[in-house]
């Protein structure tokens, strides 16, 4: 039950993009069409899952015992960056279809603050290993959800008659704001 709550909490109630405003860059950049958004969303889920597991191990098995907690930000970034590199190589060798599917989005995620944010939340909230993994899955699914909603709306925006001053970035930002407002409605359902 606790795990389910963590999952739903991360995916919907405290959606990373629309409630915490993390990872806005890919949220606006890759939400132009559904296909790209799906690719990016799954790449984020994938990287989050792996990096949560590895950073949990690094934090509790290396940083804490050696009294290096003050290095956690830099260390996490380092870990995530090299991990993504490694995963990219691994996929290219053993799972080429997946590598081609994720394509350019995989390296792009390295600098996505949603990933770092997720690992830091995991530490602050003192999740155990299983909880961390579930939390990362939830956070990733929430990211995918937000991207899918946004790209669906943007595909419709393309074929609708928008007042000239709002065209392009303007209407996109307004839409994102409205979406965030809607997600605020979930606030308080879960802690």
């Amino acid at each position, binding site marked *: 039950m606790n795990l389910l709550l963590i999952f739903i909490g991360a995916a919907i109630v405290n959606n990373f993009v629309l409630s915490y405003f993390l990872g806005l860059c890919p949220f606006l950049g890759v939400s132009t069409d559904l296909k790209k958004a799906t690719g990016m969303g799954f790449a984020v889920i994938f990287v989050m899952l792996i990096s949560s597991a590895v950073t949990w191990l690094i934090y509790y098995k290396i940083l804490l015992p050696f009294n290096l907690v003050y290095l956690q930000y830099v*260390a996490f970034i380092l870990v995530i960056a*090299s991990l993504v590199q*490694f995963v990219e190589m691994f996929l290219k060798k053993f799972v080429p279809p997946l590598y081609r599917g994720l394509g350019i989005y995989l390296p792009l995620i390295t600098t996505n603050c949603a990933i770092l944010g997720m690992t830091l939340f995991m530490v602050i909230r003192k999740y155990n290993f299983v909880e961390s993994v579930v939390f990362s899955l939830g956070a990733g699914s929430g990211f995918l959800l937000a991207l899918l909603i946004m790209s669906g709306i943007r595909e419709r925006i393309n074929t609708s008659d928008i007042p000239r001053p709002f065209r392009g970035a303007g209407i996109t930002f307004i839409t994102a704001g409205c979406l965030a407002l809607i997600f605020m409605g979930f606030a308080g359902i879960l802690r």
Partner: protein
Amino acid sequence: MVEVLEGPLYLGIFGGVFGVFLAIANYFLKVKEDPRVEIIEKILPGANCGACGFASCEAYAKALVQGEAEPGRCAPGGEVALKAINKILGLDVKVEKRVAFVKCQGGAVEKFRYRGIETCEASVIVGGGYIACPYGCLGFGDCVEKCPFDAIFINENGVAEVDASKCTGCGICVEVCPRNVIELVPARIGYYIACNSKDKLEVKKYCKNGCFGCGICASKKFNPEGVVEIVENLPVIHFDKVSSPQQLELAGSKCPVKVWKKISSGKAEKLKSEKVKK
């Protein structure tokens, strides 16, 4: 003092460990790629237009090297790319250059005043288009926008026109056009019919420039080699029989509605520079 150095030291260790790990991983996980793929990819224009039937230029390059696709599918790359690819792969494939042609020169009567979204795709939904001609160009320029090579523009008659010197024959505009008024034709024939109406005399009710299939261009006198034939009230050209543009110039010389148009080139550039001056 020592505490200050502790952070960089540990971070250095972290970085070093990951670095070595990645270097080892890179050594063991390296994927060997055919060097020809990269070379061919550089030759291809990189527009990722999809005219070859592959999702990207990279995918086409790969298929070429593996022998799954034949050279010459890349319309934008044209003859230059074809020759280079032929050389690399040791093949000898030939194709002729094709360009898009808009089979309409405007002049149709308006059916009603359209004030909706200004795209061809949207406007055609309302009562089958705002012009009375069910075949003609709507002139909102969906093709202009989609053309990756800037080869289409809206001309003085309010219809799309292709600049043959810039057109690569990728065929994106042919797919975008909701009226199917654009066709790919061999560039060498020089002339083509700028009308798409399959109506006979009814065409005169809605368009002053419409071809009504009189058949003068297909007559023995102007068409001794049988290059032109009237099908569904429109002249159809047998491309394989055309040996020079003069044949078609002769065929179109006595056209009562002047529907035969030269395949134009260099016009898009001129129009652009005029716009800049203004």
